[in-house]
C-alpha cells in the first residue's frame, strides 16, 4: 500500500541520483571514450584510435608500476589480514582505559596519508631516527638509503601502508568479533583449550567472512596506492621513475603542458582491470570456501 504521491520518493532520491549519474556513471563511460582521444589537461582532444593502448604496451614505467603494485599487494596481504586481527583480540576485552587504546590505535588512520608520509620521511631520512638509532647500536656503519634506493623506498612505503592500515582493519575485525559466539569460547575454555587453540579453532573460523572481505579491501587499496609513494619519493617516483604506482602515473599525465588525459584514461582502464581481477578471485574463493 502506498501512503504518498508517486513523485515524493523521487524528490528525495533525485539529488543523490544526480550525483551518481554525473560523478560516477558518466565518468566511467567517459573514461573509455577519453582513452581513444588525445585530450589535454587544458581541453580539446581528437580521436586517435588505439594509439594510447599501443603506447601502454611500450611504457616501461607502467611495467615497473605494475610490478610494484603486485609486490605491494603480496606483502601487504599477510601482514594486514593477521596483525589487525591480533590487535582486535587484544583490545576486545573491556579493560580500564581500553577506549583510549582503541582510539590511539586508530589515530594513524585518521591522519592524512600526506601527514604520515612526511613524518616517515623524516624518520627514515639519512640522518633521521631510524638510521641514527641503528648506527648508534652498531647495526649498520653508514645510513641506509631508505628514500633513494629503488627497493628500499618501495618497502618503506609498504611498511608505512601497513602501519597506517592496522587500526582500520582492527576496527572491522572488532565489529566482527562481537558476533563470534561467546558460548563457544567458554565451552572450549572449560574443556581446557588453550588461548592459542581457541584463537585458531574458534576466533579465526568465526571471522572468516570478514577476513575475506578484508583481504579484498587490502588488495584493492594496495593496487590504488598513491600518497605514500608520492610523498616518500618527493613526487618523483624514485630513481628513474621506477617507484611509481599506476595512480601516480595517472596523476603525472593529468597535469601540465606535457599532460595527456587520453593516455591517463587508458591507464585508468588498466587500473580498473588490475583492481577488479583480485576482487573477483577473492570473492570466488569466498564462495568456494562457503560451499566446502
Amino acid at each position: 500500500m502506498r501512503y504518498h504521491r508517486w513523485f515524493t520518493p523521487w524528490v528525495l532520491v533525485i539529488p543523490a541520483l544526480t550525483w551518481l549519474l554525473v560523478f560516477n556513471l558518466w565518468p566511467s563511460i567517459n573514461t573509455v571514450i577519453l582513452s581513444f582521444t588525445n585530450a589535454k589537461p587544458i581541453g580539446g582532444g581528437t580521436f586517435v584510435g588505439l594509439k594510447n593502448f599501443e603506447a601502454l604496451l611500450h611504457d616501461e614505467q607502467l611495467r615497473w608500476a605494475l610490478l610494484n603494485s603486485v609486490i605491494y599487494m603480496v606483502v601487504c596481504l599477510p601482514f594486514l589480514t593477521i596483525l589487525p586481527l591480533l590487535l582486535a583480540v587484544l583490545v576486545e576485552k573491556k579493560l580500564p582505559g581500553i577506549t583510549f587504546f582503541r582510539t590511539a590505535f586508530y589515530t594513524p588512520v585518521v591522519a592524512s596519508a600526506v601527514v604520515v608520509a612526511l613524518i616517515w620521511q623524516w624518520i627514515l631520512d639519512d640522518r633521521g631516527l631510524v638510521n641514527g638509532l641503528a648506527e648508534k647500536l652498531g647495526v649498520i656503519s653508514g645510513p641506509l638509503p631508505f628514500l633513494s634506493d629503488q627497493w628500499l623506498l618501495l618497502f618503506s612505503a609498504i611498511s608505512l601502508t601497513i602501519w597506517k592500515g592496522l587500526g582500520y582493519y582492527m576496527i572491522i575485525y572488532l565489529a566482527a568479533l562481537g558476533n563470534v559466539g561467546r558460548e563457544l569460547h567458554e565451552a572450549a575454555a572449560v574443556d581446557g583449550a588453550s588461548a592459542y587453540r581457541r584463537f585458531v579453532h574458534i576466533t579465526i573460523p568465526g571471522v572468516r567472512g570478514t577476513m575475506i572481505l578484508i583481504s579484498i579491501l587490502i588488495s584493492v587499496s594496495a593496487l590504488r596506492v598513491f600518497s605514500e609513494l608520492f610523498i616518500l619519493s618527493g613526487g618523483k617516483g624514485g630513481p628513474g621513475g621506477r617507484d611509481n604506482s599506476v595512480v601516480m602515473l595517472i596523476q603525472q599525465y593529468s597535469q601540465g603542458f606535457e599532460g595527456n588525459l587520453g593516455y591517463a584514461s587508458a591507464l585508468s582502464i588498466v587500473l580498473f582491470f588490475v583492481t577488479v581481477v583480485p576482487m573477483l578471485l577473492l570473492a570466488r574463493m569466498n564462495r568456494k570456501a562457503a560451499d566446502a
Partner: protein
Amino acid sequence: MTVVTDPARPVAVPEASGTAPPRRKRGTFGFNSLSPTEKVVRYLLLVFVLLITIGPFLWQLSTSLKGSGEDIYTRIPRLLPSQPTLSHYGEVADTIPVWDYMRNSLQVAVLVVGGNIIGSSLAGFALSRLEFRFRRIVLGLFLATLVLPGEVTIISQYVTVRELGLANTLFGVALPGMIGALNVLLMYNAFRSLPVEVDQAAVVDGANVWQRFIHIGLPSVRGTLSVVAIFAFIGAWDDFLWPLIVLTDPDKYTLTVGLQYLSGTFSNDPRLIAAGTMIAFIPIVIVFATLQRFFFKGVEEGAVKG
C-alpha cells in the same frame, strides 16, 4: 569520488540479510575476569602497540618544537626538546599561507559534510521506507558503483568538473564528493532497521512523508549519521590526489597539497615541515577525539560491518 572510497572510512557491506544478531553484554561473565598475570601481559602489549602507533607522531611533534640551535640529528635521539620553541609554527605561516590553506580545507570539508548528511539521508530514507517503481534498480546502481575504485574515474571526473567551469576552484574540489554512494547505502541500511509498523502507525495518525522523515526516521539513525559526518569530514580534510589534480593555483591549495608544496619547494628544515604537518594533523585529531564515542557507538550499531 575519492572522498567516498577513502581508506579511512569504515566499510559497509549492504546486505539483504538485515540486522546483525543481538550483541551480548560484555563484562557480565565470570569467564571475562582475567588473572593478574594476563592483565599485566595485556597492558604491556597495549603499551608496546601504542608506542608503535603514536610514537612517530610524538617524534614529529617534538621535532617541531626543537629550537633552531638544537642539533636534531644527534646520534642519541632526544624526545624532549632542550630549547622548546613555537617559532617554527610562525615560520611556516611566513613561508606558505598555511592559515588560508586551513580555511580552504575547512570550506571543502564543510561542503562535503553538509552535502552528505542531507543528500544521503534523504535518499537512504526514500530507498528504504518508501515504495516506488524502479526502486530496486536505483538501489542496484548505488551498489554497482562501490566496486569501482575512485581513482579509475578521477581523470574523467576532472574533465566533468572542468566543463562545469569549476577547475581550479574549491567548489570543484568539494562537488563530486558531496553525496557519496557509500553513504547513501549506509543510511539506507540504518533506516531499514526501523520496524515498518512504526511507519504505518504514523500514517494512520496522518503523518506525511516529511514528518515521518524528521520525527521518526532521523532520530533513529543518529549513530550512523554521525559516522557518515565524521568520515565525510576526515575524508575531505585528508584527501590529497583529487585537490592536487583540480587545483593549479597555489593560493587555492588545501592543507595536504600545501604541505607537499612546502616540503617539495621551500624547505629542507625538518623542524619547519614538522610544524606544518602538526598544523594539518592536530585539528583532525581533536575532531576525532571529541567525536570518537559516536564513532565507536556507530561501529556497534553496525555502521561498520564485517
